[in-house]
């Protein structure tokens, strides 16, 4: 495993403009929106940071909030090559814009984005100059948000937190490839940039649910997108301009996971990777997360997802020329484990 210090010595200097998300016109659109167009790549590879802390949970089984924020800082510092957390966050988020934090509470209590992680990110965003009212924590509905331990708030002077059951959906569907969906107004109208905060899970249909699949929570009828192991629906959905352009960063919650029986909470298949998976390339992140689940399945003697009949094929689809969302080739992924 490479240490962060080693990485800082050897990593390519500075970020280069757009890597795997580069599409004609996208850079210009991002620039006009005031968002940072950089994608951190290392010699043509997408950077993915997997930050691990084996003692995030104390002997009492409770998650240490202090260790969560420390791990977040380590991950962001490694990703941005900035030691100071505030400097690092300023590399990621634009000033004066509304930043959405798309959590995932669908699995219910016990297998939803951890509150400690949401709070840690919100704290760092504010320190980087984002006003509380410009931070919007959201998911499908109040039930999902409450599963994350969050409290609904629409007060614009505070960090806002509400679901699409409050925000509503667009009347007109948008389409790409196989999907035609009505998007959440929180995505289309409220947020300038979204940071995805998925939680790593096995998925009975898709195989794995993480960064890209988390976007099912931004449409009105996600169930319609579940055919064929969610392939190519996941890839197509992420190509819809509002999703592709606004959801620009992922801080994946792999603190707790289910390696089998997901996406719901199955205590018998619960596992604590105690990790955060961070990056801009959603495909590379999902590929890395998938490998993490496969390693765990092998460790406990469960068949690989391919043998189980549900490999996450949408990851390769998202990487193909028609979608161009990122890299699923390990040779094109700079995986930094810290």
């Amino acid at each position, binding site marked *: 495993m490479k240490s962060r210090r080693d990485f800082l010595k050897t990593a390519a200097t500075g970020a280069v403009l757009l890597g795997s998300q580069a599409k004609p016109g996208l850079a210009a659109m991002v620039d006009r929106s005031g968002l940072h167009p950089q994608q951190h790549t290392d010699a043509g590879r997408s950077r993915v940071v997997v930050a691990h802390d084996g003692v995030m949970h104390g002997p009492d089984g409770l998650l240490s909030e202090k260790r969560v924020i420390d791990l977040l800082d380590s991950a962001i510092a490694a990703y941005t090559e900035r030691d100071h957390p505030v400097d690092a966050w300023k590399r990621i988020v634009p000033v004066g814009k509304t930043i959405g934090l798309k959590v995932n509470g669908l699995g219910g*209590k*016990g297998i939803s984005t951890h509150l400690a992680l949401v709070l840690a990110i919100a704290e760092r965003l504010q320190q980087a100059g984002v006003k509380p009212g410009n931070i919007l924590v959201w998911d499908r509905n109040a039930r999902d948000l409450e599963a994350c331990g969050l409290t609904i708030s629409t007060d614009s002077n505070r960090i806002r937190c509400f679901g699409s059951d409050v925000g509503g959906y667009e009347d007109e569907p948008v389409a790409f490839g196989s999907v035609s969906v009505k998007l959440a107004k929180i995505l289309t109208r409220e947020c300038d940039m979204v940071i995805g905060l998925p939680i790593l899970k096995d998925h009975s249909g898709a195989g794995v649910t993480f960064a890209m699949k988390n976007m099912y929570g931004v449409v009105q009828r996600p169930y319609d997108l579940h055919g064929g192991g969610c392939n190519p629906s996941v890839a197509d959905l992420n190509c819809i301009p509002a999703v592709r352009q606004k959801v620009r960063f992922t801080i994946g919650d792999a603190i707790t996971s289910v390696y089998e029986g*997901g996406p*719901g909470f199955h*205590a*018998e298949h619960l596992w604590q990777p105690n990790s955060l998976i961070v990056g801009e390339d959603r495909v590379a992140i999902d590929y890395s997360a998938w490998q993490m689940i496969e390693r765990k399945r092998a460790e406990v003697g469960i068949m690989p997802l391919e043998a189980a009949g549900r490999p996450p094929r949408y990851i390769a689809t998202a990487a193909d020329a028609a979608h161009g969302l990122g890299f699923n080739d390990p040779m094109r992924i700079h995986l930094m484990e810290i």
Partner: protein
Amino acid sequence: MKFDFDGWMLAKRALFPILVGMVLVTTAGCKKASLDPFPASNAISGWQKTSETRVFAAKDLWQYIDGDAEQYISAGVVSTSTSDFKYQGQLEATVDVYTMGDAVGARKIFETGQTGDATAVVLGDAGIAYAQSVLFRKGPFLVRIVAYQSTPGADQALLALAHGVEAKL
């Protein structure tokens, strides 16, 4: 215009079984929909019911369990009821009761995803338990109870709750 009494009687005879069938189907549907499988607070020692019961028709099950709904729909789920419980103010648990079309559907789901560390328990037609969860089937019903913490005695508390649910099915 002359009223055709004989024709009316014939039609009535023909329609009667259909009407009876419709009433029976409707009644059966109401019975399932109105079934409350959840023990009231303190009906099982130490257990409090801490949430309203939520019921999802098959077509809406995705709202509760997203893509996981597919396997239940394939197995013929009719409706799903869920409620939260708490044991001695500490151990939180959720009880899901899936009403399938028949016992075959319940068995199909029951037999999916079992792992070697499951312990067989005497519950309904068949039951298994893990440290933090219990799964059993009884006729067309499939019941899953999961606890969110691992506390001493959680397994026995969950079993007691499971028996309480079973008694109401």
